[in-house]
Structure formats: C-alpha cells, structure tokens
C-alpha cells in the first residue's frame, strides 16, 4: 500500500533518511570536482546543512508544517557553501508551501516543491543552469506534469526521483566545465542522494539508520574552540557506556549494581545505571572519566563508550550568553571579519586588524551560523565580511540577511589574497562607508591570486597533460603551469602571471611546503623580479602549497 499523505512524523523520517543517504555518498559527491585537486566539499557542505536541519527535530511533532519549518530554520543557519545555501533555501521554500498544514497530499507537495524551486533560484543572483537548481526544477516539473487523480505521495516521489536522476545525467550538456572534466554536477548529485533517502523513508524502510545519523550530526556541530588551552574544566565529562560483565572477572550473578552506583556518586553525579542480564548501562557526569573506567573494567569489558566534554555541550545550550565579555566590547564604527584557514594566515588577518577570523575556506566552508556568532562578538555599526572563496560568499550573505543588529557588508573577495589586499588598505578612520566599499571593490578587482596544489588524478585541462601527483599552478579557474616539481610549478606560474609587473607579491606557503623549499623559491623570485616587493609568509594552509598574491 502506497503512502498517500505525509505528516510531520513521516516528513521528519524522510529528511533524516535523506541525510543518512547523503552521508553514505558524501565522499563520492565531494569527488565530483571539476578541478583535479582534493578540495571538493559539496558532499560535506550539503550533509552539514541538512543535518543542521534534522537536528532541530524531535521525532514527536505530527504537523508537517512545524517539522518542515523547524528543519528549514536549522538549514538556513547551518548552510555551508553555495550548494548548502541553495539547499537550505529550497527547503525554506518547501516549508513556506507547507505552512499551516498538518499533513500534505499530492497537490500540497506540488505547491510546496514549486515554491522550493522559486526560492532556490532566488538564493543566487545569477542562477546557473546545469546545477542543483536545474536538477530540482526539472524533477519537480516532471512530477507535477504526471500528477493524476490516482497519484499518491509515493508515486509523486517516484516520478520526481526518476527525473532528478535523468536531469543530473544531463548536467554536462549544460555546463562546459562538467563536460570537460567528465563529471556530473556535484550539488545536483547530492540532492539526488537526499531525494533517494527521502523516498526510501516514504516507503518505510529505514527508521533505524536515521537514528545513527542523529549522532553523526551532533558530533559535527561541536565547536572545539569553546574549550581552549586556557579553559578550566568546569562541567566535567558526560560519560556513558555499556559494560559486558565478564565471567573471567568475577561471578556475574553476584555483581552489585547498587554498590557501583554509590561508588560512582562519590566521583561524579547525575548517575544513572541499570542492568539487563550481563550488560550494565552507565551514565555519569564526572571530572575523572578515567577513574570511572578503571573501576568498571574490573567487572567486565566495554561494548560502547562515549565521553564528551560538557563545556562543549553546555556551551551549545547557553550559546546566547556564551561570551560574557561581549556586552562590554567597545562600540566601534567598523568591524572586520575574514574567513581563513591555516594558522599563519589567520594570524596574518588578526594582525591586519580583523575583529574575528572565521575558520574555513575551500574545504570546510563555514556555516551561516558561524558568521552570525562572529557578528555577535563585534559591537560595531557596520561589519565588513571578507570571504576567501566564491563558495563562502553566499553563506555570508545569507547570514547577513538573518542578522539585524549591525549593517553587514559582504565584500565579494574570492581568494585569501583579495581579502588581504582589501583589509590591509581598509581605513577605519574613513567616515564614508560607501567610499570604503568602493575602494575595497576596486582593490579586490586589482588583485591576482595564483595557487599551487597537487593534482589528485590524471586530467587534460587548458592544454596541460596533468598526471596524478603533478603540481599544478592556477589562477582563478585556469591552469597555468604543471610540473612534477613543486618549485618549478610555482615559478612558472609566476612567470605566466607576469609577476614582474606587480608592485607587491605576497608569497604564502602552506603546511605541505618545507620552509627551506619556500626560502629557495623566495630567493629565486626576488632575483627574477627585483622590482617587485616580495613578502614571504608561513601560512600553514592546507591543500595549497603556495598562494601568490599579486598587486
């Protein structure tokens, strides 16, 4: 019997299963990368985004309106990367279409999905066909056309998914870069995974796995910066485990549970312990989990074990008041936020006067919520945001739209170099904000950024026969050099970029480059381009062995 209507409980299961299925194919989606270097992260971004949505769900809500709007809110805040932002807006549109409904039949789904299409297209200023947008739009349009009186929610989803898959296969026909690289669109592929998961839940097959996904998502959200080198352990560890009592360690029948509970109460609190046969389940909050484990191990061995620092858990709950200093932060006219990865680069931005540096970049795109948290730490009338990647701009803009306590200006800096160039010239004494924006845009337009990274697969691009393991130098999306030797790839990239014509060359070497090698490249560069002022920085960034910023 096919499901005719979808209520909140079922919709939640569908979303969870969608997330589970995407998680399963996450790496495959990541690997659908146009560029032959291992920096694709569409799968991660979309998974983190949908997980941020399912995390808002309780499993008890019967109204599809409430479930879809809670999930959409979570996704809007958790959105990472362009594909994540589009996904969040897509579900926000669906939620709008389901507003006020306890359950949805086929006509409701048609309306809601159409709104989803519209909202997803609105998320980007210049929608590109051959992406998740096209795949979703064509899927919805096909399913709608096939609706008849006999249609059920399940048959609607059958048609929807059928066309999603076909549309995904057609994406290389619409986007040259996909065809040249021999891949289908990664965002579209990610969405197909989600839709497949949703459909299997609709068919009622997969409640258990959804459970697992909740746990994965919870750990993905932990912000380790909340427990720093100087933090004091205040709340201890939430320690939970299943212990299998072992015959070799004593008579199972004579195991004294109440004795264990009273012992645990001497070194912890919130103790919950019960026994079923030879398995003992223990939950305790303690400052010394090691002592608990050693004590318990004398009775048996652990089946599962989970220890979590409760400062991190606690902070999640009291995020609103997390930073007691926040209210005292001096009020300023301008605040500056940059997105960066690599310790050296983050320090660089701090020293340039950034009030907050958000971790992230090409891989590990920050979520909209990360931006909002950073906004909240800055007491400024206007906050300038400098992304370091085209895939971060949209997320920043989404965060800006969700925040109303300051004017947020997202500059469209697409590389670390563009951000550096602009921030270093930002004059916070200037009263005319529009003048600053104009100057920043002008500076960003005048920067060339080149990078060197190692190819992860063979490919033919821009006239280069790239072998896996080669070092490729590229500027924007164009490959300019290719060599098995990293310094050669770097120097020939600089030559192709006419480094000698620039006043300033910032050379940022990554964690994959030895200082001695960087030094020799630096020496060669200063000899080759004596008129260009070259500055070398240990950026510590992943993936990009060298980043060259030319102004």
């Amino acid at each position: 019997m096919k499901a005719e209507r979808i209520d909140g409980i079922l919709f939640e299961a569908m979303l969870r299963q969608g997330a589970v299925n995407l998680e399963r194919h996450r790496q495959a989606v990541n690997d659908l990368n146009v560029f032959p270097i291992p920096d694709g992260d569409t799968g991660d971004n979309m998974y983190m985004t949908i997980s941020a949505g399912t995390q808002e769900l309780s499993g008890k809500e019967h109204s599809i309106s409430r479930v879809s709007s809670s999930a959409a809110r979570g996704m809007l805040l958790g959105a990472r990367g362009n594909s994540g932002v589009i996904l969040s807006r897509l579900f926000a549109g669906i939620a709008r279409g389901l507003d006020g409904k306890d359950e949805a039949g086929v006509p409701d789904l048609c309306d809601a999905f159409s709104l989803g299409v519209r909202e997803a297209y609105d998320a980007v200023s210049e929608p590109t066909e051959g992406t998740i947008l096209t795949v979703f739009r064509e899927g919805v349009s096909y399913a709608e056309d096939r609706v008849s009186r006999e249609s059920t929610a399940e048959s609607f989803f059958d048609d929807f998914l059928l066309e999603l898959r076909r549309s995904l296969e057609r994406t290389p026909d619409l986007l040259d870069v996909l065809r040249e690289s021999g891949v289908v669109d990664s965002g579209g592929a990610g969405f197909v995974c989600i839709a497949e998961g949703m459909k299997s839940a609709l068919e009622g097959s997969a409640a258990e796995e959804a459970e697992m996904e909740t746990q994965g998502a919870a750990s993905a959200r932990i912000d380790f910066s909340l427990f720093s080198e100087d933090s004091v352990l205040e709340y201890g560890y939430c320690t939970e485990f299943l212990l299998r009592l072992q015959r070799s360690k004593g008579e199972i029948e004579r195991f004294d549970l109440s004795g264990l509970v009273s012992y645990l109460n001497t070194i912890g609190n919130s103790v919950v312990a019960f026994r079923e046969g030879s398995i003992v389940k223990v939950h305790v909050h303690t400052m010394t989990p090691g002592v608990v484990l050693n004590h318990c191990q004398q009775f048996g061995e652990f089946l599962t074990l989970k220890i979590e620092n409760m400062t991190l858990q606690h902070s999640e709950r009291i995020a609103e008041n997390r930073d007691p200093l926040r209210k005292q932060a001096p009020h300023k006219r301008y605040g500056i936020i940059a997105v960066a990865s690599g310790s050296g680069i983050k320090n660089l931005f701090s020293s340039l006067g950034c009030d907050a540096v958000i971790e992230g970049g090409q891989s590990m795109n920050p979520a909209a919520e990360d931006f909002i948290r950073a906004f909240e730490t800055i007491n400024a009338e206007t906050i300038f945001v400098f992304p370091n990647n085209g895939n971060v701009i949209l997320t920043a803009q989404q965060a800006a739209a969700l925040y109303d306590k300051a004017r947020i200006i997202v500059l469209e800096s697409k590389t670390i170099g563009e951000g550096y160039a602009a921030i270093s010239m930002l004059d916070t004494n200037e009263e005319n904000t529009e003048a600053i924006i104009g100057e920043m845009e002008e500076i960003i337009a005048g920067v060339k950024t080149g990078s060197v990274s190692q190819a992860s697969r063979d490919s033919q691009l821009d006239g280069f026969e790239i072998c896996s393991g080669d070092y490729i130098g590229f500027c924007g999306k164009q490959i300019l050099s290719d060599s098995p030797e990293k310094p050669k790839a770097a120097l020939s990239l600089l030559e192709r970029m006419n480094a000698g014509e620039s006043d300033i060359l910032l050379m940022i070497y990554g964690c994959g480059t030895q200082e001695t090698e960087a030094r020799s490249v630096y020496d060669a560069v200063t000899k080759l381009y004596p008129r260009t002022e070259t500055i070398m920085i240990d950026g510590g960034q992943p993936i990009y062995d060298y980043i060259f910023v030319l102004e």
Partner: protein
Amino acid sequence: MYVIFTDTDTDLTPEKAEQYGYHLISMPYSIDGETTYPYVDFKSFDSHAFYDRLRGGVLPNTSAISEEQYKSYFEPFFKEGKDILYVHFSRAMTMTFEAMDRAVQELQKKYPDRSFYAVDTKGITIGSLNLVEEIGDLYQAGKTPQEILNWAKEEVDRFAVYFFADDLRFFKHSGRVSGLAGTMGTLLGVRPIIHMNSEGKMVSVGKEKGRTKAVERLVKTVEDLGDHVADHRVIVAHTDAPEIAKELCALLRERLGENLNIELVDVNPTAGSHCGPNTVGVSFHAKHR
C-alpha cells in the same frame, strides 16, 4: 652679538653646522642600556650599520638630556656676553625642553642681561632641517634674532614634511604617531603616509600599498601642496634606503623640474630610532603643512 644652536635631531651634520655657524646639541639614543651621543661618541654616522642593527630586531630608546647638560652648552656663551637663538626640533615630541626651560631660567638669573630665543621647528629630522638651513642662511646674512623670529612665525608652517614607514614596530615602540590605523601590527607592503602637523606632531594621513605607490604619493603631495618649491631646498631623507630615496629624487626632478635644489640626507640615529629602517620622506616649501 648672538650665536645659533640646533640639535642633532634636526639632521644637521657637524660639517654643515660649521658652514652656518651652528652649535650642535647632541640628542642621545640608547641600545641595551648603552647611551650614544651622535657626533660626540662618533665622528661620522654609519647609517647602514646602524639601521641594519635595527633590521636585526634592535629597538633603541631615546632619552632627554638634563638641565645640567643644557647649562654646559649655553653658559659659556652667556658668560662671553653673547645671546643665544636655538632652532630646535618639535617641543610636542619630547620632554627634553622642560629641562632646557629650567636651565635657561637659572642661567638668566645669573646673566640677567642675556637673551635666549627659541624657534620651534615643529618638526624633526628633515622637517626641521629645512628651517634650520633657511635660518642658517638668514644668520649668515646678518639678520637679527627678532627678524628671524618674525620670519619663523610665518614660515614654520610653510615647510611640510611627508614620509612613509616600512615597519610599524618602531613607531609603536616610540608611541609618537597618532591615527596610525591603530590596529595594524604587520604592514606587509602597506606603507602608512605620515606627516608633521602644525602642532609639531606626527600624524598618519593614509596608506599606500607597495613602495612604488608610496613614492608616487610623496611626489603627488609635493606637486599638490608645494608652493614655490623650486625657490627653496627640497630635502629627501631616508633610513638606509638609498635606492628608494634616489628613485624619489629622480621622480621629483622629472615632475617638478630638473633644476630642483634637492638635498639627500641620512636620518640621524636618534630620530631614526622612532621610525626604523626603510623610511623615506621629503621636506618642501608648501602652502601649508
């Protein structure tokens, strides 16, 4: 009958001092507790060696000279029945002139007939040097102290100095520049443009990216703000950056006339302790500072 004084912070060297008839007060700096008096403790200044030490991470301090030291400079001339005109670096930048005031008060009690005149150049290094040399010319031409003071009243504000910094550590250490985009710790090619305002304080007036743009900004400033530039000295100074300074000189000649009277000087080590190596600046006659 009067004698003229200036101090080493104005970049006047002993050779030039002698030409004009200036007596030179040595303003000290210290590195690791060892105090050096320019042109007392050394004969000629090895600019490259000094600024290279700074490049190596040394942060020198500067100190005020004492009331007694001022007395020992001035008293011999009062004793001989001569008056004194002291053309000094900016009072707004130092505490040293309070010691000088006390010394002069004491001496005037002892020599009530003697007069002490002071001209605050409201500058340091070449910001002062241009005025020091103009006044030296007037002194040589036989002008009286009062005539010089009257001239200075009009002209101190008409000599502008603009320079760019390469390393903010020194400015931060000395704490003598305001408006330095405050937060920046690393310059990474960015060069704050600094000038001396009419109160005699260093103020940042913007920044440029890269040496080429910074040099261009200085040239542009001379073009825009200059007034009868060619009728006066144009002084270019640097802290061990002769290439950039020469580039600046060449551009100035190209844009303002080949016959420009350009003087190229090394920034003295005491003032240079505040700005560090690779600073380049220009002083010129201007509509205003």
